[in-house]
């Protein structure tokens, strides 16, 4: 039976080709868009993996912008249930750049609270380190840094100045392994040095509160908000939810654009099959007269639609894979990747293409089985 399906498809090469192209384009969109959202999902997952558990305390302003005085750390520490509290100071590596959230970020940390990611070379920061840095893998690749190299950090004078007023070299003491998280774009420098260079003494961006395992983080976050002025606390769970919520919107937008494209591809399958069926009225009528069962005819027509779906799906996935790979390669030079083609995505893309083909082939196939052998054969 497959040879008949094949024959029918190759008989109408142009039309089959266009239909497959339509599906391929749709699935290509699904793969590329999906790849982007998968990549962000993975990044978020990996990031949370590394952060561990800590209540994040930020200024109680819209979006948590602004900064906190270090005195708040002591206040947080005094809240019953908090076992330890520490601050970090975050600033952009390029003070003139526009922040996108994906750019390179300097994190001022206490050496004892630095990220516990593995290092490919060098060492972690230690207490008493001066202008030293442990850098993420993307940073190391982009600036071609090895242990012992110098990385320049810059500062603008906060008042009135539009150009860089201060520069300083920090020496790289350690390079982190690739983590697939936001930390690949981070430069960790001892907190006191960051505060000093950026003239932000006694200031931190966030405070993290650690707590004993038996404490209820939700309760604790509430207690911190009540005990410390003008702060907002979020539990690790809530942080994850917040980000996942944002990602969900992002995913929804990208995926629905992609699905729209794929549905248009599916409609082209339907159109092709309807044309094909009405063109082959006599053929199906004849096959019925020859004793073909409904299932034979269904198999032939739905098989054709499904096969177009499979071929279109595979082409779309392959094309998507190649394009995202090329894009990742070109972004890699700048230290970031944008797409992750996960196995899950490939399976979803393929299933989507096949079901699209089958669903859109169902009605034409049904029409084909309804062909009366009488009507089909009576007239030339």
């Amino acid at each position, binding site marked *: *039976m497959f040879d008949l399906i094949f*024959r029918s498809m190759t008989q109408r090469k142009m039309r089959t080709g266009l239909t497959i192209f339509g599906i391929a384009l749709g699935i290509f969109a699904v793969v590329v868009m999906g790849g982007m959202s998968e990549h962000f999902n993975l990044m978020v997952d990996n990031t949370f993996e590394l952060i561990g558990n800590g209540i994040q305390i930020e200024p109680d302003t819209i979006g948590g912008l602004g900064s906190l005085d270090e005195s708040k750390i002591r206040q947080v520490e005094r809240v019953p249930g908090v076992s330890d509290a520490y601050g970090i100071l975050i600033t952009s590596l390029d003070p003139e750049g526009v922040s996108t959230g994906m750019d390179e970020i300097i994190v001022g940390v206490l050496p004892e609270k630095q990220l516990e990611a593995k290092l490919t070379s060098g060492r972690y920061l230690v207490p008493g380190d001066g202008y030293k840095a442990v850098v993420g893998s993307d940073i190391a690749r982009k600036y071609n840094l090895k242990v012992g190299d110098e990385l320049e950090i810059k500062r603008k004078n906060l008042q009135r100045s539009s150009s860089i007023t201060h520069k300083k070299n920090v020496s790289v003491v350690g390079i982190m392994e690739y983590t697939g998280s936001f930390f690949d774009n981070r430069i960790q420098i001892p907190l006191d040095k960051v505060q000093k260079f950026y003239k932000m003494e006694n200031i931190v961006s966030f405070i993290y509160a650690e707590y004993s395992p038996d404490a209820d983080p939700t309760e604790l976050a509430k207690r911190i908000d009540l005990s410390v002025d003008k702060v907002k606390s979020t539990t690790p769970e809530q942080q994850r939810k917040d980000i996942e919520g944002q990602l969900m919107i992002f995913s929804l937008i990208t995926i629905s654009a992609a699905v729209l494209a794929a549905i248009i591809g599916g409609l082209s399958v339907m159109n092709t099959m309807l044309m094909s069926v009405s063109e082959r009225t006599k053929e199906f009528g004849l096959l019925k007269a*020859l*004793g073909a069962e*409904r299932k034979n005819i269904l198999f032939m027509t739905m098989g054709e639609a499904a096969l177009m779906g499979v071929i279109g799906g595979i082409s779309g996935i392959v094309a998507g894979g190649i394009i995202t790979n090329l894009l990742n390669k070109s972004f890699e030079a700048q230290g970031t990747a944008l797409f992750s083609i996960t196995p899950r995505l490939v399976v979803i893309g393929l299933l989507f293409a096949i079901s699209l083909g089958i669903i859109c082939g169902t009605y034409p196939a049904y029409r084909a089985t309804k062909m*009366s052998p009488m009507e089909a054969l009576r007239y*030339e």
Partner: protein
Amino acid sequence: MSNKGNNGRNGSNGNHAVDSEPVLRIRDLRKTYMQGKIPVHALDGVSFDVKKGELLSIVGPSGSGKSTLLSMIGLLDRPTDGSVFIDDVEITKAKESEAPRIRREKIGFVFQHFNLLATLTAMENVDIAMRFTGTSKNRRKERAFELLTMVGLGDRVKHKPSELSGGQQQRVAIARALANEPAILLADEPTGAVDTKTREVIVDLLKGLSEKGQTIIVVTHDMDVARQTDRIITMRDGMIASDTGVKGNEGQGL
């Protein structure tokens, strides 16, 4: 060329239309269409028997009901009333789901316009009739070649219909109709689309098949064709006007 499916009942009879159980029995067959609100009696009580190996022609003017009759026998359409028995099975009582099986096992169709699949070769056109029977691929190939050789097209098996003449195409169609060794070969105007010379080739082929024991019913306008058959049934207004096979019984059903 043996007729394996029917050997058991044919015996060693010299005469091809044997006096045995009829292959086909039609009893009081009626078909009424509604044309708007006016009922049209396409078939109005038709009864006759066809014996094995008979070459029967059904003639009559357009609208006399002969094509309707053919489609009832071929189970392409259902009667309003009455019965059709093939090999003693009342096919008019068969469920819709059984119809395809009956069509492929009992009936072989030959059409006026051949109705070959343009994309397939002669061989594949014959082969396709056997696909739905679960015959093995090799056996199908063997049988298709055998049949095409028998209709004189052994050297044309790889040709597409467009590369064959009308007569050759009709012979492919006859080979296809015979593929599943049907009880009855139904031919609807088989010579309607070919020239007179080719017509003789087709008729000779049908006569030859009948002599080998194949039951054949031909619907035709062409009295030159009808005259060469064993028996002529003339239809008029959905009834049998005359039947040369029934002595002294012309005009039954009137």
